[in-house]
């Protein structure tokens, strides 16, 4: 299943291989975050989502996020996978697995990862409703000089 620790996949994401990858005898805590396709958002029913990625750059950015995490929280081990293509209700879109000797770092690093993914990884989500469809994305301004790689 899992081919590398930071990857974009098209097949359904299974959780166990990523946990097995991050777990080793020095670790006492594992946190796993999975982001799922939600059917209802503010009363609007989603039929399915369509995800697209700039795959090589996205995998590179995921690995960079992993490196940032391991620098900020020494001793952790990380795997991140994001699925693209057509995803249906309750499917896993993204999975972040973090192991750590102690639990605090495992929680903090995991939440850091999803925040960073939503900031810098070139992946796009289109929501398809009964009444239409829309690419989702924060309408950010083009970053000022020096902000792009922050």
């Amino acid at each position, binding site marked *: 299943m899992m081919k590398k620790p930071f990857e974009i996949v098209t097949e359904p994401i299974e959780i166990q291989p990523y946990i097995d990858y991050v777990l080793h005898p020095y670790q006492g805590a594992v946190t796993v975050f999975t*982001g799922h396709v939600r059917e209802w958002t503010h009363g609007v029913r989603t039929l399915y989502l369509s*995800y*697209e*990625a*700039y795959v*090589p*750059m*996205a995998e*590179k950015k995921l690995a960079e996020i992993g490196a940032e995490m391991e620098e900020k929280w020494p001793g952790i081990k990380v795997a991140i996978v*994001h699925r693209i293509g057509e995803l249906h209700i309750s499917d896993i*879109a*993204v999975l972040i697995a973090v192991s750590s000797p102690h639990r605090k770092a495992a929680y903090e690093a995991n939440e850091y990862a*999803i925040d960073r*993914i*939503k*900031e*810098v*990884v*070139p*992946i*796009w*989500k*289109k929501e398809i409703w009964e009444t239409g469809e829309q*690419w*989702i*994305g*924060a*309408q*950010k*301004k*083009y*970053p000022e*000089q*020096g902000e*792009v*790689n922050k």
Partner: protein
Amino acid sequence: MIKVIYFAVAREMVGKGEETLKVENLTVKQLLEWIGSSYPAFDQTGMQVAINEEYAMLDDTVKAGDVCAIIPPVSGG
């Protein structure tokens, strides 16, 4: 020559996934302006540009052989 790849809403705005431009040594800002003038539907609000899979700044230069990606606001997760 440079290669330009359009993703997500950018692809829909320009009506194509990629193209090759016979230009070089232009800035990211100039590239975005060229796209804007070539495709009236293209709105550069929130767009970023990656050169060879790395985010670039507006005054970075695109050289011959570079691959540029037009990156709308990301929405992974």
